[in-house]
């Protein structure tokens, strides 16, 4: 599923989880699940950032020539 997530959606969901956590809107029971989800989202975002950077650099390098 996470593969289908785009950065924006993933990052917003991450922010929402953090906000909910801060506001105490997550129960202890949910916490592990939420943290797991957040870690997935973080990975998605990281990968997306890395792959985007690589893509962009490739395109730009190609453009220079």
């Amino acid at each position, binding site marked *: 599923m996470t593969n289908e997530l785009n950065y924006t959606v993933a990052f917003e969901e991450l922010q929402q989880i953090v906000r909910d956590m801060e506001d105490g809107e997550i129960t202890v029971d949910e*916490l592990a699940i939420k943290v797991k989800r957040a870690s997935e989202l973080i990975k998605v975002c990281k990968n997306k950032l890395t792959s985007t950077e690589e893509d962009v650099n490739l395109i*730009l390098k190609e453009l220079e020539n």
Partner: protein
Amino acid sequence: MAKLIRTWNIEHGTSTFFSEINWLISSSVSENRQIFSLQQVVSSIRKTIEERYQSSYWVKAEMHKLNLYPSGHAFPELVQKENDKIVAQINASIWNHNFQRINKQFIQVVKEPLKEGTTLLLNVKVVFHETFGLSLQILDIDPNYALGELQREREETLKKLQAERLINANQLLDFPLLPKRIAIISADTSKGLSDFMKVLNNNPWNYQFFTMLFQAYLQGDVAAPSIIEQLKRIEKVKHHFDVVVIVRGGGGEVGLSCYNNYELCKAIASFSLPILTGIGHSTNMTVAELVAFRNAITPTELADFLLQTFHDFSVPVNDARKVLRTSSARLLETNKQLFSAETKHFKNSANNYLLDAKNTLVVTSQKFKNEAKTLLTRNREHLHFAQKECLNYSNRLFKVNREKLAEHVEQLPTKFANRLAKEQQQLSEMENMVRLMDPKNVLKRGYSITTINGQTLDINNPVKIGDTIKTVTYDFELTSTVLKKEEHDE
């Protein structure tokens, strides 16, 4: 300029002229006919005219044709038109030396050579030549008047275009982002064209233009129709072109009044592609230049302008690459920072959350323990209190009952004593009464009791004389006999 213009009154002139003719006719019809040789007659006419028109006159007339001969002499046709109909016409002549001078003056002042079809102010002498007949010899032409006329034509063209709302028409067209495909109206011999092409083709940026030359006359009377013709041709293939340029140059500043020509200007203004002009002159802008999409002073400048539009296009395209690089980097950097901040924030939040939850649990547990102990302590206290109260209330009960009992114990002898005293008193009262009643005590005071047969005497127990009665006193008991009996008066 006004003081130079002295117009010749044609009507007046005509009347004297015809009186001369009348004279000739009358003489020819006389009886004793006198035969003149043609030369005589023509000479006579010449003489008459020469006598009559000795001075020169300023005449306003349209130079219909110039008729310049290779000899350098010109034999213009002069006309006066009213409502497009010729109302007067005469041939004229300009001798070579006059023509050279006049033309030079003209070009100097008007920036145009003498031109057919224009109204001029001419200084003329009426001449009659035996073989060539009557004509006006043009001695001079006022260039300032011509200049005024040109100005008038320019104004008129402008006014008309204004009226037709065409003045801005070309300028309102969208200019192509890259004016790559250029229809050039010029002459292949024009230096302006070669300047223009040189700039375009030798650009160091390798910008590629497609140009196609549409040959036309660029000055003089022929220019306007020629250019109009080429514009029509270009119109036919306009989808191959982005702009039209009209370039001219190196031909000096003479002969440009054609660019004020209404028809040409209209054609330019209403053309469907932007028309750029670079006709190379430094005087007042012609109407064609005014209505063109853009005017450059020189073809070179026009070419530079076109190159500049390529630059204008090329620079942002080249910059875009830089922007892509820097903005991408910035965007990625910003997002990375946001992301890493959020990740950190997330970790902190998760840890804080757990810490909070643990603290809350610990606090609640502690509270729970305290409450449990408090509850037990409180109940113990209640119990202890109840026990104490039991003791207190028991003791109070004992005390109250003891006091009440004591009270009664105290009352018992008193009440008994009172009672006894009361009884004794009653008894002694009785005793007194009995003592008082006792007959013995009556007898003591001297009374006695008399009885008969053991009975006290009264009506029921009467006594008769002779009866034996018994009398008891305190000290004695006497027995006697009744001697006398007397009744008490009651």
